[in-house]
Structure formats: C-alpha cells, structure tokens
C-alpha cells in the first residue's frame, strides 16, 4: 500500500505509521516541523517501510500548503492508495473559552481546514481510481456534546458528519472512507489529564484502525468498548447532561 500520513510524528498517527512500515507499506509523511518529520521518517525506514520514506511541509493552519504537499506525496510514491489524517489540535475546554485566538485556530484546523484537506485528497484518490482509502481521525467527542470537550467536540461532530456523507456519496465510485472515533487514548495529546476508565493505548488502537483500512470499514471506534459507552451517553436525557461533569 502507498500511503500518505498527515500526523505520523506523534501519538496514534505514529503508532499507525509504524504498523504500516513494519509490514512493508510505502509511506510519505506530511507535517509542520521538518526535523521532527525527518526523525520519524528514519524511524519508519528502519522498521521496514518500502522504498524511501519521504516527507514534506504541510500545516493544517495553512491551506495553501495542502495541494503541493499531496502532489509531492503522489509523485514520490508514484500514486496514492491511502490518505490518512491523524493531526488535530486539542486543548481543555477552559483554555479554549479563555483564549479566543487559540479557539479560532482550533476551530479552523480541526474542522474547515481538515475538510479542505480531505476534499483535495478525495479528488486525487478518485482520479487515481482503484481501491482508494481516506482514513480520518475524528473523535468520540463528536458523538454527543459534553461539558469538558464542548468546543473540541463540535469540530469533531462536524468532521464526522462530513466523513459519513463522503462515504454515502462516493462509496459507489470506489472511495472507501474510514471514520475513526478514538476514545480516550493515552498519548502525548492528553498527557496531564487523568485517564478515565477504559482509556486505551496507541498501539492496539492503531491495530484496529489498520484492520479497518484494509477492510474498508466505514466507522471504527477504538478501543471498541467506546462504541457502547457512547451509545449510553447519546441516550442520556438533557437533564442528566446538564448535571454531570463528564
């Protein structure tokens, strides 16, 4: 498989890219920090990625960087079988309420710009034909509005809505959209937060996601138990949601 990954240097993206490298996939990395990308490329190369692991600059806050980055990836890999997006911004609700600038950037990066990136990826994957895959990390936070992740969850709700629609519209043309909804996973993103019960580790999550990419599963909850947790939370009445802190 020839895959381009936006967000492979950290967390779940790092774990997923490693699994792909270790089974011999060809990879191309997109991200902001060139040094960091070079280090991840070396890591994936040593782990067994096919060919040379290339990388280039791509910043979710800079839309102009999207098309050139995707084109560079397609050129380096001689085509694309999969585009994976794990990058996003996160900050606690209180921080986002207080810092308007940061809030604007988070809203732009996680919603509008991620969708802009996916649109460019979709065009290229469809044009290439074949069994193209677009795998994007949303979050269980988008399944039901909850107090501690209200603003973050809103961007993820919008993103999930969009990805579901992509599946409806383009599945018939061969584009497999994989919407990933991680629960609480112990990555650097949430370091400093107290892990709740059922918190997951990046590697098992990455395994589940890779299986879904291979099979073309439209929606993945990871760890899987979060499917049932969210089923319960979605069914809670408003009066309860107003009271609980969760």
């Amino acid at each position, binding site marked *: 498989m020839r895959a381009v990954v936006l967000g492979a240097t*950290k967390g*779940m993206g790092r774990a997923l890219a490693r699994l792909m490298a270790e089974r011999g996939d060809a990879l191309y990395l997109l991200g902001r920090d060139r040094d960091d990308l070079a280090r991840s490329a070396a890591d994936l190369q040593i782990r067994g990625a096919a060919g040379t692991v290339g990388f280039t600059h791509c910043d979710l806050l*800079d839309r102009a960087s999207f098309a050139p980055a995707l084109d560079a990836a397609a050129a380096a890999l001689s085509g694309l079988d999969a585009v994976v997006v794990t990058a996003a*911004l*996160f900050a606690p609700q209180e921080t986002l309420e207080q810092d308007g600038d940061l809030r604007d950037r988070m809203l732009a990066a996680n919603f509008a710009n991620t969708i802009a990136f996916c649109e460019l990826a979709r065009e290229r994957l469809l044009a290439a034909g074949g069994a193209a895959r677009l795998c994007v990390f949303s979050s269980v936070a988008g399944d039901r509005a909850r107090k501690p992740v209200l603003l973050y969850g809103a961007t993820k709700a919008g993103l999930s809505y969009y990805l579901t629609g992509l599946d409806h519209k383009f599945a018939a043309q061969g584009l497999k959209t994989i919407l990933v909804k991680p629960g609480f996973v112990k*990555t*650097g*993103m949430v370091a400093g937060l107290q892990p709740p019960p059922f918190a997951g580790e990046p590697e098992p999550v990455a395994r589940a996601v890779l299986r879904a990419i291979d099979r073309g599963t439209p929606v993945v909850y990871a760890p899987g138990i979060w499917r049932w947790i969210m089923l319960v939370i979605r069914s809670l009445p408003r009066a309860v949601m107003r009271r609980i802190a969760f």
Partner: protein
Amino acid sequence: MTLIVNEPLNIPLAHESLSAAAPLDATEAAEPLSELAGWGHYPVVQGRERRSEDLERVTRGAVLTRGLGRSYGDSSLPPPGRHVVAGSPLADRLLAFDAATGVVRVEAGFALMNLNRLFFSRGWFTPVTPGTHYVTIGGMVAADVHGKNHHVAGCFGEHVRSVRMRVADGRIIECSDQHERELFRATLGGMGLTGHLLEIEFQMERIASPWIWQESEQVADFESALEALEEAGKQWPYTVLWSDLRAPGAKIGRGLLMKSRWAEPSEAPSAPPRWHRAPPMPFFLPSWALQPWMVTIGGALKFWMHGARRRTGIVHPETSFYPLDVLREWNRVYGRRGFTQYQAVLPGPHSHPRQRRFLETLRARGGNVFLCVIKDCGPEGKGMLSFPKPGVSYALDIPMDRNTQALVDALNDVVIAEGGRIYLAKDALTRAEHFRAMEPRLDAWNAVRRKWDPHGRLKSAQSIRLLGDRA
C-alpha cells in the same frame, strides 16, 4: 495553561515560554498529582510524570527524567518538596541503524522490548540486557545495567558510543569517550543525575541465531553452587544461579545453575521465536496473599521438579532472559506493602569465607527472602559510579515489613566490611553513611556533577537520601 498538540502546528506551547533555568515546578500547581513509585512500590510519593514525544521540551528545567519506572526504589522519584519529573517513554524513535556494523541510535525512551522485537530476526541483539525488557535504553544507560554475561561483556555502558543529553544549565551536549569524556563516564551509571538523556548510540551484538542453547543443573548447597557458578563462567557467556535460601539446614543455598549461549544455526529451529504480549497482573493482591510458606514450598518444588539430571536444549530467548516478564506488573503480587530488591556485590574469589558470612548474616536476621539470584561480576567498566566489581552479586527480593530496614542495615555492615557495594537502581533503604563507606568513588563523581550542575538542579528522592544532595 496546557495546550497540547497531537501534530506539531504553529502554536507556541505554554511550556516553551519558560526560560531554560525556570523550574518546571512553576507550573506544577495546575496539575493533579498521583501516586508515583518505583518497581518495588516502596516508597510511594505524590507526583506527576510529564510525558511527551518532545523530550527536549519536557526536560527543560526538570529535576529528573523517568523512563519505564523499573528501578526498584526511589531512583526515579522526585526529591522531597518537588512533584514533577519528565517522562521519556513517548520519545521512542529509532534514529539510525547501520546494518553492516550493528550501530544503532535511538531516542532515550525507546524500550528494549521493541529493540528485541525488531532486531532479533535481523540477527542483532543488545550486548547487555537486564532481567526485564520493559526498560528504556535511557534507563539502561542511567543505571549502567548488567546482565548474566557481565563476566564477559561488562555493563551496557561499555557498548555505548555516545549520548546526547540536556545538562543542568539547559544546554544540549553530545558526549562520548572523545568529547566531554568525564561527563560521559559520570553519566554511565549516574542515575540520570548528570543530565537528561535524550539520545543514545550503541553497538549491538551479532547473534548466531535468535534462539538460546541452555544447560541447567541442580547444585546441592551454597558453597558448591558458587563453585559451579565460577566454573561455568569460564566457558559460558550467560550464567546465573537461582538460589533457594529457604531450604532447610545445610541445604540452604541449593539451587539451579543456568548456563546459556546463542544457539548455532544448525541447532536452532528454523522458525524465529515469536514474541507474545504478556498479560498484565490486573490488580494488587492483598499484602497477606503471598506467604513465606508458599515461597518455601514453591522453591522446593522448583528444585525437585528440575531433577538431578542435567537438562539441555533450545529455549526461547524471552524465557531465558526475561522469565518474570511473562506477567506484566508482577510486582503487584507483593501487594501494596511493596518489596525491595537488595542487590550487593562482594569481592571474589567465590570460595572466600566472606560469601558464607553474608549468607549467615541473612540467616541470623531471619531474612525473609522470596527470591535470590546470584551472578558473576567481571571487571569494573567505564562508569564512574557503576555497580559491578569483580566478585559475586546477590539480588534478594524481600517484602517490606518492620524488619526490612534492620536487615538491610545488617547486610550493609557486611558489605562495607568485606569491600563490596550495593546497586543504586535497586536500593530503597540504604543509609547515606553506609553508602559513603562503601563508595570511595562518590566524591569524584559528585565533583563532576558540581562542575556541570553547580546549583544542584538535578536531583532525585534517592540523591537526597543517599548521595549527599540537598533538597
């Protein structure tokens, strides 16, 4: 204040606004604390481990970096009055590997388990491994770990070519035998107190096959066990003695001697060994669950079930090197009371009466030892404060109770009188004056530290308790 990114984006991190010298504790107030302990679960402190893929960021201003927390005592704990330590395990990338020479460079949080998983099938192995693979390479340097092959391979530090580290004033320095040699040698076995390890470059060993050829045999008592261990070391690269200190009367110290080497390709199975993900011990057993009589019976069973005949054959490298890793978090078996591992080396020869004196002290004190592992130590290496010296090393697992402190004190008296020393990575109970008496090297090591850290910024709970640092 916490803004956390999952992919590097152009947003300044709150931490980055701190100057290099500002203590991390300036931001401590906002963070919830939790229990922090070493592998022995004694002592336990309130603290927080700050982990990030970006180790350079989280080590800025930090007092100490913690890896996977496999040191037994207080080596990885913050000093009194401080709460936050940096955590390395998310900084776990392979940075370079030369398939021709076996030189590898990794970020400090890279786990030995992953090194093994990735390189076994390619014919490379770490030249020195401790008894667990749930350790970071950074931790292996900081403790300058040794293994069953110390008598031939020395400590891990002998195979380290260079390290990249953040020193106390915030600078990042690459050091080796060629560059800043003094700092390099103080860092091998320096318990992370000379600087924060960021990257390590070391030489791996070519192995003939990914399987182990092992011979094991019963040894009848303490003296014949030590004799057999010494003899085995002349021929075998890996030797270790499991010793039953709960056996009755003159049989005390009987045990099983394990000798092993890498199997030749002609002996080894054609398929490479499979690495299993071990199941975790899901909770702490009650402290009373593991009783001494169970260990006594278990030890006798282990001895008798082996049988009097010598056993030979191919074993899985995991079984050979990491027998306890089959159950992750096995330390919870001891319960919340915790346990300590007391490890000391006594100078050779193996037949010297001092070895018996150590055993008799243990017996006279009613030493409640649940596991005793005896190994050969070879010559001292580069590390200024590394543990091994030529002789016999004893590692004793002892559940914590009200007698443990007195037992450790009594054993330390013997160790001092006989010219031995203890292993910092295991220690939780040694007294500062005892350590000073057994470590004439301490002043020279501290002098190097003071040169690089004149204000005493880097410290741990252990360095305050034992090494003369001020809180």
